[in-house]
């Protein structure tokens, strides 16, 4: 067995362990949010969607930021592993985005009275999602490994530019979406029980993100070894 194959198998195993731990932590957050956090008086039980929606948004933005940062490193160092890691993070980011883009409208329907509105935060988030769907489509369409890595790195960096803009969009535009309660210059603006559940959610879904990415990256390395250089993602 080659050292590369051994390393790839080890990465897959680590990814599997981290993913299981992440899922267990996410299940604990479900229990914490449903049982131990108070019901918000004005919004009702639907406010608890927040504990799933916000960590999913966090996971998606972290994933897409990682794609951009690792893509910059790829263009600099030309290490194929960086390209595979960026593509792995993009796929995981799409999974988190799907959670964000489905739970958001369900919550929105109860508090805004509408499933969707074309305001800045929501529209930019949808653009980001489509940008990374395009990123994966591009990778599937381009056969030459070097070109595929280079083109997708450029798209990944464009996504990175969008990430801080999405975070700041609630300050820059008039929008229905609430302003940040945690990632802002002043102290978090929520009761301690809610803050505890939110922070637990952030930690649990960050762990799940890491598990997914490591597992996907190990899988990409395995595929790469089996199919020949660069055909993995």
């Amino acid at each position, binding site marked *: 067995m080659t050292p590369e194959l051994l390393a790839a198998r080890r990465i897959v195993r680590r990814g599997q362990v981290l993913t299981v731990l992440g899922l267990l932590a996410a299940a604990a957050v479900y229990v914490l949010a449903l049982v131990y956090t108070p019901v918000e008086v004005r919004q009702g039980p639907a406010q608890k*969607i927040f504990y799933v929606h916000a960590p999913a948004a966090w996971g998606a933005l972290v994933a897409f930021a990682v794609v951009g940062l690792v893509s910059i490193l790829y263009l600099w160092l030309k290490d194929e592993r960086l390209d595979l890691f960026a593509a792995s993070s993009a796929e995981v980011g799409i999974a988190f985005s799907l959670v964000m883009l489905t739970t958001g409208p369900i919550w929105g329907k109860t508090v805004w009275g509408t499933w969707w509105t074309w305001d800045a935060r929501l529209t930019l988030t949808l653009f980001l999602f489509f940008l990374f769907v395009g990123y994966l489509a591009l990778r599937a369409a381009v056969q030459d490994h070097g070109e595929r890595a280079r083109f997708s790195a450029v798209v990944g960096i464009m996504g990175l530019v969008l990430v801080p803009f999405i975070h700041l969009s609630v300050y820059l535009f008039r929008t229905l979406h609430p302003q940040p309660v945690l990632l802002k210059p002043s102290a978090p603006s929520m009761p301690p029980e809610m803050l505890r559940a939110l922070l637990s959610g952030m930690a649990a879904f960050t762990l799940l993100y890491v598990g997914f990415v490591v597992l996907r990256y190990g*899988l990409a390395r395995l595929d790469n070894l*089996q199919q020949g250089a660069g055909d993995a993602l």
Partner: protein
Amino acid sequence: MPFETPQNGGFLVAAYVVAAVIYVGYTLSLWTRASRALRKAGRGDREPGSQ
């Protein structure tokens, strides 16, 4: 008129179920692909001429 807390628990359940289905579905997808790749790697390892 006293303020009444909205009864919208159904939306909460729907959102949590949708999120769980996506996360578990993606986990299963990754797990299946990884198991297949590991099996394939194991087979390749046993084939004559493989390192």
